[in-house]
C-alpha cells in the first residue's frame, strides 16, 4: 500500500518537476484553461477554442467543463434518486438526497422566506445548493478543478443573487415601496444623506461578499492542498511525502467539510437576502 502511494507520488513529482517552480505550479493548477488534464501521462483533453459570439470568447474552458460534469452528475443522481415507492425513495441514494433536500427546505429556505414563499422559491435554492455542492465535491477528485474557485463563476452567481433578491423585492413590494423600505424610516434628512449611500453600498457588498467568500474559500483550500503536495518541488525529493501525506489527507478531509459548508453558506445567505427583500418589515 505504502509502496503504491510512494510510486504514485514519485510519478506525480515527475510531472510536477516539468513546471518551473512552486508558484507557477500553484497558479497553473487553480487557473482556468482551455485544456483538461485529468490523468497524468495521458495527453490532455484540448477543449475547442475560438467560439466568439458578439465579440465575447465563449469557448468552453476547463471550469465550464466542470460545470457540465457537475450538472450531468446531478441530473443522473436525481434521475435515480427521484424514483420512489409509497412516497419514499426506493434507493439509498434517494434517501440521502432527500435528507439534503429536506435539510435545505427546513433549515435554509423556510426560516428565511417563511412558509408561504417557500414552495415557490425552493427549486431555485435547491438547485443553487446542489450545483455548488456538486462542483465543490468534484473539485476534490484528483485531476478535476474547482469552478467554484473561479472568481468569474462566483461573480456570476453573486450577480444572479443580487438581481434575484432585488427583483423579488421590487415585484413583491413594488419599486417605490421596496426602495424606501431599504432605508430606516423616521430618520431626519441630514442623517439620510449618510444612511442612503451606506445602505446602497451594503446592498452591493452583500453580493460581493458572497462572490468573494466562495471563491476565496475554495481557492484557499486548493492552494493549501497543492502547496503541501508542492513541497516535493521545494525539497526536490519525493521523500518529504512521509511528512506531508498525512497532513494533506487531513486537509483534504477538511476540504470535504468545506465543500458542504460553503454550498450551505452561499445558499443560506442567498435565502436570507431574498427573505429580507420579500419581508422588509423585519
Amino acid at each position: 500500500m505504502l509502496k503504491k502511494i510512494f510510486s504514485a507520488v514519485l510519478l506525480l513529482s515527475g510531472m510536477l518537476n516539468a513546471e518551473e517552480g512552486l508558484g507557477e505550479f500553484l497558479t497553473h493548477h487553480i487557473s482556468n484553461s482551455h485544456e483538461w488534464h485529468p490523468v497524468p501521462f495521458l495527453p490532455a483533453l484540448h477543449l475547442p477554442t475560438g467560439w466568439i459570439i458578439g465579440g465575447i470568447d465563449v469557448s468552453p474552458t476547463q471550469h465550464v467543463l466542470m460545470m457540465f460534469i457537475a450538472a450531468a452528475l446531478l441530473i443522473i443522481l436525481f434521475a435515480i434518486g427521484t424514483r420512489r415507492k409509497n412516497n419514499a425513495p426506493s434507493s439509498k441514494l434517494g434517501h440521502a438526497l432527500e435528507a439534503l433536500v429536506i435539510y435545505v427546505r427546513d433549515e435554509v429556505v423556510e426560516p428565511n422566506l417563511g412558509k408561504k414563499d417557500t414552495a415557490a422559491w425552493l427549486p431555485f435554492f435547491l438547485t443553487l445548493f446542489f450545483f455548488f455542492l456538486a462542483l465543490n465535491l468534484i473539485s476534490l477528485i484528483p485531476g478535476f478543478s474547482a469552478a467554484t474557485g473561479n472568481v468569474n463563476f462566483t461573480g456570476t452567481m453573486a450577480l444572479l443573487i443580487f438581481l434575484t433578491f432585488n427583483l423579488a423585492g421590487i415585484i413583491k413590494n413594488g419599486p417605490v415601496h421596496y426602495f424606501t423600505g431599504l432605508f430606516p424610516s423616521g430618520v431626519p434628512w441630514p442623517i439620510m444623506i449618510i444612511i442612503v449611500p451606506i445602505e446602497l453600498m451594503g446592498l452591493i457588498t452583500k453580493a460581493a461578499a458572497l462572490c468573494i467568500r466562495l471563491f476565496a474559500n475554495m481557492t484557499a483550500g486548493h492552494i493549501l492542498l497543492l502547496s503541501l503536495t508542492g513541497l516535493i518541488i521545494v525539497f526536490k525529493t519525493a521523500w518529504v511525502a512521509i511528512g506531508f501525506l498525512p497532513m494533506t489527507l487531513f486537509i483534504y478531509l477538511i476540504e470535504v467539510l468545506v465543500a458542504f459548508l460553503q454550498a450551505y453558506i452561499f445558499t443560506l445567505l442567498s435565502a436570507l437576502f431574498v427573505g429580507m427583500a420579500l419581508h422588509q418589515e423585519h
Partner: protein
Amino acid sequence: MSSELNGLQYADAEAASSQAEAPATHTESAAEGHSAAGSLPPFLQFDPGVWIWTFSVFVVLLIILRKMAWKPIIASIEERDKTIKNSLDQAARIQEETKRLTEEQNKILAAARHEANALMQSSRQAAEELRRKLEQSAQEEKARIIASATAEIESSKRTAMAELKKTTAELSIKIAEKLIKSNLDEAKSRALVDQLINEVSKN
C-alpha cells in the same frame, strides 16, 4: 461587485493588449492579459465567457431539475408529511377516545358495584326482616297451641272430675242401699263393705 470592477479593468487591459497584437490562441492572450495586469494572477482575470456559461448552465440545470427532481420530490415529501400528520392526529384522537371510554367504563363499573352493594344490603335486610317475622309468628303459634292444649286439658280434667263425682255419688248411694237392705251384723257389714269397695275399685 468589486470583482466585477476588477474584471472590467482586466477586460480593458486585455482588450488593449489584444489590439496591440492579434491573439493567436487563448492561452497566449491570457498570458498577455496577465502580463498587462501585472500584479493580478491569471486566476483573477475577468472572463465573460465563463459568466455566460455559468449563467446558462445554472438556468438550464434549474429548469431540468425543477421538472425532473424538485417537483416530484417535494410533492412526495409533502404528501408523506401530510400522511404522517394525519396518522398522528388520528392516533391522538383514538387515544383520547380510548381514555374517554375507559373513564366511562370505570364509571359504569363503579355504579354497578354500588348498585350490587345496595342490592345485597337491602336483600340482607329483607331476609333479616323475614326471619324475624317468621320467628315471631312461630312464637305466637306455639303460644297459641300451648294455650289451646292447656284449655283442652283443663276442660277434659273438669269433665272427668264431674264424671268421677257423679259416679262416686251413684256408687255411694248403691252401697248405702245395699247396706240398708242387708241390715246385718257388724262383721257381716264389714265384709260386705270390703266386698263393695273391692267391687267399686274394680269398676
